[in-house]
Structure formats: structure tokens, C-alpha cells
């Protein structure tokens, strides 16, 4: 089946390659939800590919206002107006000549311009011109039939509320329904798009985040934890920390392509341990990304320099990248997708998130947080990327809580860092709780962070320290 490519970032991916050609699509949403910009973005992208669009306004927004608003977007181009993007006013015909003349006018415009795409904006506004629902329904049916015969893909834009989507006749006739809406989540005002119906193609259901920027519309597909994402294999290799005693405890290192949770209280050295893992990879010629929600790049560089690690060299070589996202700015829907883009782009073998606790704090719905992290984890495993997620343990002396929200379930390996009391002093202890598919040292070992790095010391042999 022929498809109309929208050209909008990730929208065609969600649609399984595009919108089926000659389909009739409704773009619904409340005022300001981005309907007009979405459709305009699609028609200008298609105009650049040589396809012609006829954009008919009705009574909601005058054409000059619309053009003025569009000028700020990169997709807009004056050169395409009149040639590939033709604006017309269906509203005047409807008001002055009546509804029965509208189809005739539309047909004449089609014969004159032979467009590939026709948009009616706003379609809902013209409902009131019809004397009753029956007449309007007949009009919609005739319109759909007429436009499809002319091999035209149609977009009817309307300020429909969600509850209307199952009630109004136009939705029964529509081949595709795009619903746009916004909602506040934590501190973000977010925009979502849902494809409620799309005949003739498989599409990704659920809500997908989108943003409107000077580029136009960009969609961030919902991360899917289910289905084919679970198909991945294990690699036999191991990836070490470059800390001999720790690598010995792990029987040579972490199994490639697994997820390791490093859980510990504040100050136990989770960040340093994770950073060391990436630097060891860089030393071996592997690319790594350190995604930090807690410390900016300069601060991490400083820490690494103090420990005598050659972080500047690896950053300059591109072997190591540090991406800092302020937890205040973190938007899981958007960033989870960007992280995967970055991983693909940089051909990463080692990856760190420091910490997933910041992820958790940015998402209002705990289930959504778990789903996202699970989906991200599966994506990383599919790509055989050895990953470390650090997690803050709120209780510095309790080893029992690995992480909140049962995130430990997604980890193949768990390393815990904790404090123990030793008389009047506090010591740090490291233990390996599990390594999936492999054996490991069961001992708890003291460790220290010195100007020379991380030193793993002897086994902890004082049971009373673990009270």
C-alpha cells in the first residue's frame, strides 16, 4: 500500500512507514494543542518532495494569521506558497452559498490544482452550517468518497474533545484519527499524540510525547517494554572495572550486555565506581556514555583528575562522553528516546546512568517510571551494551533495600555499597548480591577511596559490624 510520508521526526516510524495514501484522517484536539502546526508541517514537508496541497480554511483562523504564525518555523517556505501549498477559503462558500455548494467548490479546486493532499481546517466549525446531523453525515460521506476517488489524502482538523471521538459521525468515516492533547506532569507541560485509528497499517498505540520547536513537530515514541524487545542473546565476554580485586570478585568482570545496579547510600562512591567502569572501557578502546543527573561534566572531570584518571584524554578522543541533564529539566518521555539515539550514534559499548533515582523523581506515576526503565533496559540489552545504573539507597546502614520501586528486578547484577560501624568509626563495605548466569565472590569486602582510586581491602570478618 502506498503511504504518504509525513517527514516529521519519528511520526512515520510510529505509523509503520507513513499514512496510507488516499485516506481520510481527522486531527483532533483542543485549541492550542498543535493540530494546525502538525498538518502544516506535513504539507510543507510533502511540498518539498514535490507533492501539492490544498489547504482550505473555514471560520476558525484567517489565512493571513495562519501564515504569519507559521513564518517562525523552519519547515515554512514562502517559495512553496501558491505552487505546492495553495490556500483556499471554504468558509466563505459555505456561508454565502450554502453547504450543498461546498462539494462543487471543492471539486472545482481539485480540478484546478490537482492536489495530493487536501486539508480542511477547521472541519468541526462547519458542522453548524448544516441544518441537522443527518445532512452533515451525508456531506461527510460524499466528501470522503469524492476525495478518495481523486487520489487525495485528506486531513480534517477540528477542536474535538476526547469524549466526542466516539460520538460524531465524521469519526466513523475516518480512516485515521490523530488526537493531540496536553497535560501537566510534575513540572512539565507536556504534549502528547495518540493515534486512535489507522486503517490499513499497523501503528504504535499509546501516547507519544511531541514537542513544538522552531524546527516544527518532533515526536518521541513511547518506549515499548513488550514483544520483540525481549529478543536478545548473551555474549560470552566480560567487561571489568580495571580494579583487580573487584574484577576477581566478579570472576573477570561483568558479563557483556548485562545491566548492573550499583546501589548505595550517599557518599559511598557509586559515581566513582561507575565512572571507573567507563574509563576502563575507554582504555580498551570501547566507547562509553556517562549520563549524569547529579553532577555536571566539569565536576566529574575534576573528580576523575583528582583520582589520577586520564579522563581528559578519553573525552578528547571521543571514547567517553558525559551528558549532564539537570534533574529539574529531566523529561523521561523525551530523554529516554534521546539517550537511545545517542547510544546508536556513538556506537557505545558501556553505558552509565547516574542515578536512576533522579529518573524516579521526575516521573509522577511509579508504574510509568518502572515501564520506562524496564524498556530502556531491554533496549540496552538488545544492543549488548554493558550498563550500570546507580541507585541511591536512602538508608546508609541498611543493605536490604537495593532500590525503591523494585527496580532491582531488571538488573542482571547487583553490587551494593554500604556503610558499617566499626567501633567509633564508619567503614565502607562492598558486596555482590547477584551476577546472573555466573558465579561471584560472596564475601563482603571493605573498600576505600583514595587519591589513587578505589582500593578493595580484605573480607569483612567482624559480623557485629553488620548489626
Amino acid at each position, binding site marked *: 500500500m502506498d503511504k504518504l510520508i509525513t517527514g516529521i521526526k519519528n511520526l512515520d516510524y510510529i505509523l509503520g512507514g507513513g499514512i496510507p*495514501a488516499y485516506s481520510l484522517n481527522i486531527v483532533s484536539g483542543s485549541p492550542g494543542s498543535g493540530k494546525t502546526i502538525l498538518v502544516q508541517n506535513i504539507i510543507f514537508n510533502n511540498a518539498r518532495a514535490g507533492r501539492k496541497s490544498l489547504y482550505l480554511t473555514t471560520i476558525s483562523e484567517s489565512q493571513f494569521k495562519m501564515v504569519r504564525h507559521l513564518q517562525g518555523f523552519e519547515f515554512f517556505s514562502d517559495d512553496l506558497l501558491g505552487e505546492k501549498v495553495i490556500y483556499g477559503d471554504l468558509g466563505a462558500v459555505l456561508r454565502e452559498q450554502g453547504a450543498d455548494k461546498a462539494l462543487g467548490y471543492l471539486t472545482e479546486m481539485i480540478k484546478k490544482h490537482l492536489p495530493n493532499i487536501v486539508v480542511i481546517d477547521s472541519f468541526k466549525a462547519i458542522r453548524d452550517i448544516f441544518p441537522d446531523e443527518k445532512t452533515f453525515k451525508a456531506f461527510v460521506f460524499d466528501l470522503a*468518497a469524492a476525495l478518495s*476517488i481523486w*487520489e487525495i489524502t485528506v486531513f480534517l482538523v477540528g477542536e474535538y474533545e476526547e469524549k466526542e471521538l466516539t460520538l460524531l459521525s465524521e469519526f466513523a468515516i475516518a480512516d485515521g484519527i490523530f488526537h493531540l492533547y496536553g497535560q501537566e506532569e510534575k513540572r512539565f507541560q507536556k504534549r502528547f499524540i495518540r493515534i486512535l485509528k489507522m486503517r490499513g497499517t499497523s501503528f504504535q498505540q499509546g501516547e507519544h510525547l511531541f514537542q513544538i520547536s522552531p524546527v516544527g513537530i518532533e515526536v518521541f515514541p513511547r518506549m515499548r517494554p513488550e514483544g520483540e524487545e525481549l529478543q536478545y542473546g548473551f555474549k560470552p565476554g566480560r567487561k571489568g572495572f580495571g580494579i583487580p580485586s573487584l574484577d576477581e570478585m566478579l570472576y573477570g568482570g561483568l558479563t557483556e550486555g548485562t545491566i548492573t545496579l550499583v546501589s548505595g547510600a550517599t557518599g559511598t562512591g557509586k559515581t566513582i565506581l561507575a565512572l571507573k567502569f567507563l574509563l576502563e572501557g575507554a582504555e580498551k578502546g570501547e566507547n562509553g556514555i556517562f549520563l549524569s543527573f547529579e553532577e555536571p561534566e566539569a565536576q566529574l572531570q575534576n573528580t576523575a583528575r583528582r583520582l589520577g584518571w586520564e579522563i581528559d584524554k578519553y573525552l578528547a578522543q571521543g571514547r567517553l562522553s558525559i551528558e549532564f541533564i539537570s534533574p529539574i529539566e529531566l523529561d523521561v518521555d523525551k530523554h529516554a528516546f534521546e539517550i537511545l539515539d545517542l547510544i546508536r550514534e556513538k556506537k557505545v559499548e558501556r553505558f552509565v546512568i547516574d542515578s536512576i533515582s533522579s529518573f524516579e523523581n521526575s516521573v509522577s506515576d511509579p508504574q510509568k517510571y518502572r515501564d520506562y526503565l524496564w524498556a530502556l533496559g531491554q533496549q540496552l540489552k538488545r544492543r549488548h551494551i554493558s550498563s550500570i545504573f546507580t541507585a541511591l539507597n536512602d538508608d546508609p546502614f541498611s543493605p536490604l533495600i537495593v532500590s525503591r520501586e523494585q527496580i532491582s528486578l531488571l538488573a542482571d547484577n547487583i553490587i551494593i555499597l554500604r556503610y558499617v560501624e566499626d567501633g567509633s568509626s564508619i567503614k565502607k563495605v562492598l558486596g555482590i548480591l547477584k551476577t546472573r548466569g555466573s558465579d561471584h565472590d560472596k564475601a563482603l569486602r571493605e573498600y576505600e577511596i583514595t587519591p589513587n582510586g578505589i582500593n578493595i581491602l580484605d573480607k569483612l570478618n567482624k559480623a557485629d559490624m553488620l548489626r
Partner: protein
Amino acid sequence: MSEITEKEIERYENLLREMWTASAKYLGILSVNLLVERVVWEVSLEYQEIELLQYDQDGISCARIAARLKENPELPVGDMFMKFITRYVAILARLIGRERTEEIKKRLNEEFASIPFDSREE
């Protein structure tokens, strides 16, 4: 109008009726009429007499074209209908898919073997 031309018109009318019926199965009568309307308009840019083709929900008729032919025997009827058929089949192929259109063409070819249906005009 010579007897040969009269028979030719009759043959084309039968063919159009078959096409109309076969495609109505997939598109419905309303859409078939709209499709005929579109193709008539497109072909009329070259052969204005095609506008004399009559069609409604009951079917299609070439009676008015036949009448015009009596007045003007020089009308390039063959070329006009071939253009119409080719265009119709090409659009139909894009609307309902080439596979189903092939089925229709196959059926028509059995009855109208001398007319080379081709949905690949573009």
C-alpha cells in the same frame, strides 16, 4: 453512422458496463460514479465528446455519444474510449490495489480480448 462504428460503440458500451459492475464490487456505486466523473473530466480535456457519456447509479450508457457520431462520423471514438479505459484502470489500480485490478482486467480480457488493458499508463 456505419454499421461497423455502431457495433464498435456497442462493444465499448458493453465493456464500460462490465468495468462499472466489476469495480462497483470494490468501490461501491457512489464511488464508481465519482470515478467515472473524474475520468470523464480528465479525458474531456482532450476529447470533449466523452462528456456525452451518461452514467448514474443504474449504470452507464453511450447512447448520446452514438448520436453525436451520427452527426460527426470523424470522431476518434476508438482513441477516446481507449484513453478512458486506460485512465480508469490506472486509477482503479491505485485505489484498490494492482492485484484486484488484475482480476478485473483478466475477466474483461476474456470477453474483450482485442482490447489491451493496461493499468500502467503512468
